[in-house]
């Protein structure tokens, strides 16, 4: 079994934090994984993505082949669409609803939602609202991770352990905000399906 997932968003939205939590959880569960990411110029407000592959056996290619992603996890709706060609015919798309508009030709957001809903399974999460409820808008990434966690082949407690590890240097308040964001995202996804 290889589980392929694409993390998407805009530079600065915390894609690498999501990757950190999933990587560590995978290692804790004894899985192999390979995760590519983007550094450098694109991190300045450009489209960023990470390919993350989990498997019980060794994986070699750092990139997911087209048409073989099980899930797209996006912190931004337009960015979710950018990687549709990677999605399996029965793939899942989990995306935040809140657009990040920093380009002049950003399409009408309703059109984007409509396109996302063409995926066999899709969920648009109210990430901004739930992040605010958890205590900080910056936690949108953890809301989306929470929603996607329902699908990922990893245990809930491991996500939470490594969210705590990730934010521990920033103090308890930040840790709790992010844990709550994760929970709210997870509940939202469970309520949906």
């Amino acid at each position, binding site marked *: 079994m290889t589980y392929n997932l694409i993390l998407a968003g805009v530079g600065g939205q915390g894609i690498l934090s999501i990757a950190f939590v999933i990587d560590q959880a995978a290692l804790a569960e004894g899985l192999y994984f390979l995760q590519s990411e983007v550094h450098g110029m694109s991190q300045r407000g450009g489209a960023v993505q990470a390919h993350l592959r989990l498997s019980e056996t060794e994986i070699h*290619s750092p*990139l997911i082949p087209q048409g073989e992603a099980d899930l797209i996890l996006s912190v931004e709706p337009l960015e979710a669409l950018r990687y549709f060609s990677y999605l399996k015919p029965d793939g899942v798309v989990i995306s935040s609803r809140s657009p990040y508009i920093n380009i002049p030709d950003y399409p009408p957001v309703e059109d984007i939602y409509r396109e996302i809903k063409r995926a066999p399974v899709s969920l648009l999460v109210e990430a901004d609202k739930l992040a605010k409820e958890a205590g900080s808008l910056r936690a949108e990434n953890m809301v989306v991770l929470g929603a996607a966690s329902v699908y990922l082949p990893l245990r809930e407690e491991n996500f939470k352990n490594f969210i705590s590890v990730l934010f521990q240097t920033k103090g308890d308040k930040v840790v709790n905000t992010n844990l709550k964001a994760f929970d709210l995202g997870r509940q939202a996804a469970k309520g949906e399906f």
Partner: protein
Amino acid sequence: MEKIILLGDEAVALGAIHSGLNAGYSYPGTPASEVMEFLIRQSDGGRKYVAKWCVNEKVAMEEALGASYAGQRAMVSFKHVGLNVAADPFINAAVTGANGGLVVVSADDPGFHSSQNEQDSRYYADFARVLCLEPASHQEAYDLTREAFDLSEKFGLPVMIRLVTRLAHSRAPVVIREAAKKNRDLKYGYSPDWTLLPANARHRYQVLLKLQEQLKDYAEGCLFNRFSPAQNGSRLGVVATGLAFSYFQEIYPRLDFGPAFLKISTYPFPEKKLLELIDQVDEIIVIEEGYPFVERFIRGVAGIPGKIIKGKMDGTIPASGELTPEIVAGALGLSAKTGLSTGNFQLPARPPQLCSGCPHGDTFQALNEALHGYDRANVFSDIGCYTLGALPPYKAIQTCVCMGASVSMAKGGAEAGVYPSVAVIGDSTFTHSGLTPLLDAVYSNTDMTVIILDNGTVAMTGAQPSFGTGEPLDRMLVGLGVNKDHLKVINPLPKNHQLNTGIIREELAYHGLSVIIARRECIQILGDKKRS
């Protein structure tokens, strides 16, 4: 058996630490920066070993060479174009030879993710006649770095580790081994080998030439080079180097024929093994990241009679860009799967851009306005976040070539009749390679204006320290001989727009060398400081 999660860059860094590294040097550059970031984090504030950012790659290479002469294990790391800057000491270090293990990490960027070209560092290793090791995986990045230090001491030569972006910037678990003891004695004194007077250099070069046979022997026996004969009568042979082998490995189980394959992880590459493969097959496919380095050797001028050779040179694999699983599958005759399509929906691109509130934006606005009305102006620029000023909405700069080139090109432009001739360069790029051309401009009092964007950091690569920022930068400029009357400091904020435009306009009008420092901290590091 301990497994830890590492970026490819970090696997190299940890391999070096576990080899008993004494000193690491670097200049930031994507995709190599994380080698030094990791070394610094693990150095216990420099107590375990020296780990330092340097003013540029040439300096870093030379500092590492100095440490190697002193008998210490040293590593220098940079991006591929950094090797251009360090080329002089790199090539000559191969002639002098190394004393303590000397490892040179050069990270190539196929696909231009964050670079101005796709140059392939393997050519440099070949040019210098040193050994180059190319890992195919994270595990190999760690293992080969450990091997590199031993090899460097065994052969008395620098050894290159070649990385590519996709390995440098991906993460995977790596099994680590017990660290070697750090037991290098400091060696005082000298060897005549290190003074490249022609007589010594001639002698040393003969030594280097003789060593080539030993390097080839090593390549032949090296376990990281792997040959596997054809199965089930297949007449196809695959030659795959470094990370390209990993893409091949992923696809191999899906093939219903069993091609012979040769994995290459060293240069010189194992020629005998390659001949063995060629002998068994009718068709050879060469897969490599970067230039068709091995492919060119195999093809030669006349090809191999009776054999078909495929790769980047006949278009089986695109000549440019990085490899993907689809490209490798396609080269082996497998069709790629297709994913979902977004049909007619027009997906706008989202290129990188300056952060909102970035000081560079304010400087560009003022500069654009100050240049209004001139029709023979040119703004020569440089490498950093501010290169994004070439894009809308600013469209403020017209060149980006290599580190420090803005200042030299502005001088050349001015002397060719460009007016106003403007250079725009960041503080760190300026100390990297802008100081020397500025001295040239001071000497000639060239009619040009240099704008130094002093944001106090190397912002693009993740906020590494800058060597010439703030007050010390001002003193540096005065020390270089810049006329104090035409050395201005502006604070690029929207509220200062009129004032700043006026100052720039005045200096553009001045017929001689002016330097304007646009000083305001990068908002990213400002944010980090506030948060911490």
